[in-house]
């Protein structure tokens, strides 16, 4: 990363205006993934001093400010309370706690790494990305649209009585996952997200719909097979397509079993 000039905006409005003025400008916060890029940034707009780090819970939804760090998400009581701490578990393999103090949730969403387990979880929990000007986007809309030149204020996660299970496979503790899945059960409806594919996290909507139609007559194994067939998998440095397909079945099945098993406290 190379920076032409550095600017600390006084308000979100100020940050937004700067962003519009110069197409080569960029918002920066923890600067962890940007730093690794070869990108040229004419003007770096540092938003870390703006009041965007708050994590709040109003009984209906959890709101995570975009400058909250991954470490905040791991340690904040509201985040820990949501689905037995699935949010924290989705980031605990990323480097060490020191670095997770720097990585912001807004920065992670902005760089949209395809291997992000957090994005996979947010997708399954039907989270919303709240922009300053452009309003809210569902995670699905957010991921499928090109990056918008707007300031992300917060991520909102609906707090309906839901359970969520995250399953991942990786070669070592700190390695990027080969595949991950987050399965949420919201009012008896399954929401299945699969991530760490070379194409990033997606919802397996067809399989979830089939499962809903079939009700209790369809097994977790059958749903997992449908997910594996529905989603495109590819080869990359971390894994072959065949292994990803196979692991998709195993991980999705195991996640479904976990969220549908009444006796287990996990995910409550």
């Amino acid at each position, binding site marked *: 990363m190379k920076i032409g000039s550095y600017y600390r905006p006084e308000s979100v409005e100020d940050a937004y205006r700067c962003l519009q003025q110069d197409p080569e400008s960029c918002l920066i916060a923890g600067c962890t993934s940007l730093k690794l890029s070869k990108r040229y940034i004419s003007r770096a707009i540092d938003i870390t001093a703006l009041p965007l780090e708050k994590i709040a819970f109003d009984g209906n939804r959890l709101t995570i400010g975009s400058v909250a760090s991954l470490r905040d998400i791991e340690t904040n009581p509201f985040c820990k309370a949501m689905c037995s701490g699935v949010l924290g578990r989705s980031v605990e393999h990323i480097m*060490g706690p020191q670095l997770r103090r720097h990585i912001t949730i807004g920065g992670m969403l902005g760089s949209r790494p395809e291997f992000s387990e957090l994005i996979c979880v947010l997708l399954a929990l039907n989270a919303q990305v709240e922009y300053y000007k452009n309003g809210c986007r569902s995670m699905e809309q957010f991921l499928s649209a090109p990056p918008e030149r707007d300031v992300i204020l917060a991520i909102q996660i609906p707090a309906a009585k839901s359970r969520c299970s995250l399953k991942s*496979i990786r070669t070592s*503790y700190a390695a990027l996952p080969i595949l991950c899945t987050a399965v949420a059960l919201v009012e008896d409806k399954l929401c299945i997200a699969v991530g760490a594919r070379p194409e990033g996290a997606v919802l397996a909507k067809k399989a979830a719909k089939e499962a809903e139609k079939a009700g209790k007559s369809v097994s977790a194994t059958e749903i997992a097979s449908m997910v594996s067939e529905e989603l495109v998998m590819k080869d990359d*440095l971390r894994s072959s397509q065949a*292994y990803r397909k196979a692991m998709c079945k195993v991980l999705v099945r195991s996640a479904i079993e976990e969220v549908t098993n009444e006796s287990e406290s996990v995910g409550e």
Partner: protein
Amino acid sequence: MNSVTKAVHKIDGMALALGKPMFTEDLLPEGCLYLRLIRCPYAYAEVVRMDVEQARALPGVVAVYTPDDVPHNLYTNPGEPYPEGGPIDRYMIDRFARYVGDVVGLIAAEDSRTAEKALELVHVEYRVLKPILDPHESLKSETVIHQHEVLTHFDLKCKPEINQMGIMYDAAGDLEKAFGECDVIVEATCRTQAQAHAMLETHRSLSYLDYRGKIVVIAPMQSPFHVQRVIARATGIDPKRIRTVQSRVGGSFGAKNNLFTEIYCAFVTWKTGRPAYHKFSRTEAFCCTNTRHDLEMRYKLGATKEGVIKAIDVQALCNGGAYAEDSQDTMYVGCHNTLPIYTKIDAIRYNGVAVYTNIVPGGAFRGFGAPQNTFALGVAVSRLAEKLQMDITQLQLKNIAQVGDHHPFLKGDEPITSTSLARCIQRGKDIIGWDEKYPRRAISPTKVRGVGMSVGMHGSGIAKMDKVFAMLRLNYDASFTLYVGACDLGTGSDTILLQIAAEVLQIPVENINYLHADCDYTPYDKGAYASSTVHVTGNAVMDAAQKMRKMILDGARRLMKTDEEAEVLYDGKKVFTADGSKQMPMDEYCQKMVSYYGDMDQLTATGSYACYKSPPPYATCFAEVEVDLETGKYELLNCAVIADIGTVINPNTARVQLEGGTAQAIGFAMFEEVRYDKDGRLLTSDYINYKIPCQMDIPDLKIEFIESYEPSGPYGAKSLGELAVHTPPPAIADALFNAVGVRIYTTPITPEKVWAALQEKGREV
């Protein structure tokens, strides 16, 4: 024992903990030039035209050197003794670039940003050539990687015209007859991957002119003497004008055995008269230095039905990469520091070939071929145990070397004089709970646990080659100064050498000043490689200290005016006559020694050691894994390594060496892997894509030492540094087989490979 066998703190330990300046980057003088290398983006290409005028014109750029602007002297990178063991095949800056990242030019600028900017202004036109990326293709390829003359000092069968670096052939006995008499024969073809050193501090060096016009080069090097020689050879600078000094080392593992930055710094200082500093980025450390050699090995073992191994035949293909560096030595060590562990053999053969390819050169890396061969041999022995339906620990105990045994691959045919390996195996069985756990236990319908084990050995220095010196001086204040050319790579070897001297002189370690690794001020040492500092340099220090003791006694007779026959003693504090009639404290002794009336020299002793044998240290690893049958993912639940390194001179440093080595070996066994794309570009060039083990990947290691006493070692010590990485990979592979019945012949043993093998096995059933 006062010092030896005691957990003496590392002499630099507290300073390191407090962040005191001691590394190369801490020592930069004012006005340093910063260097950047112009690197080729193709796996094999020839520079047709280089336009550097724009770069030269950039304010702040002091010099840009193209292949035409530098001396064209053949040299080889390893900082090892003359005559070099491998082919001499590179130039400091060449028109031909032989791997992605190879050097085609050099920039020196007032600051690193300007150097970086200048790099973008250099325009190079290349003639792109067809690279060789697969070692199997190398010998039959139409591409010739080294089209120039390649020199060798020995008959290595180096044939650059067919991309052959050399052959390593060694054999004894009648192989055909021996195999004919065997009841059981097994084969295993294994391939181990390239591994990155991943040391904390990347390669770097600094140089400056001193007031006498000498070029002083400071770097985290492994041998000042060879660095001096190689710089001189590559650049043509008179070696007398070069002074090389080792700074503290922020991790090496062999990475800093080779000269990647020193030559360029010295050259720029020579040409410009300015201090120069060159530091590799992490990407350069991954892409443009060395890796562990990728080796393919076909092992064939023959044994009697009782399980006595009688015949071993090995064929190896060593992927040397673009430059020979240490490929020849890697094959040599891989063979000679691995196979002599089994001494009941009638016949043995090792036939290895090293080839050139257009990838990052394989180079010195902790173990030098032995971890690779230990893995393949371990897999073959595990197969043998399976075929004989024998507990592998019993099979090992029947075959391992015993005191008095000979082996044709032990140089000079010296017999084994120390081993406690059998006791190490017994202890390992107890620690892991072998008798209860072997071979497997089902934990759930999808999880199975298994235990496995392996054995390994190394050498201690290089027999009939290594020669080292040490000097001790008695000072006017009754302290001593030890001068040693050996290099502590962070292992604590400086501390251990001081412990040895302190033990002989019966004084605390703190009473000895220490001067190390400076080619102008310390005596010659072969350098820190081949697991030799404690055993080899330790012997020279012991020799110097023993000579010093004798000198002190001779001096005492003069100073105390006793007759020449009188028995005089020294206890570290004073000298005295045996009958108690006369005594003199050392303070007084030293004052007299340097006074006008002291009729004697200042006492200075030189010790030496010629390494006539390389006594093997041994280790055994016991591993317990839990395998998930659905995913192939396995956890290493337990890992015990029990080693025989002779006498443990410092239990602190020994423990951390073995723990660190075990962790490095676990990474090698389970997930570390250097990978390339189809054009030969390194994909694993950062810590996101190349993972080394973190704390969470390593179980609570059970590390123990069972001492033997090696008569040729200082106070009975052998070596440890490289032995530490040998045994975990084959133990993990054996444990996996015992757990789920699948064999993985290639490292790293990833969950995907285990899963694929389980699928295959499922289809067979």
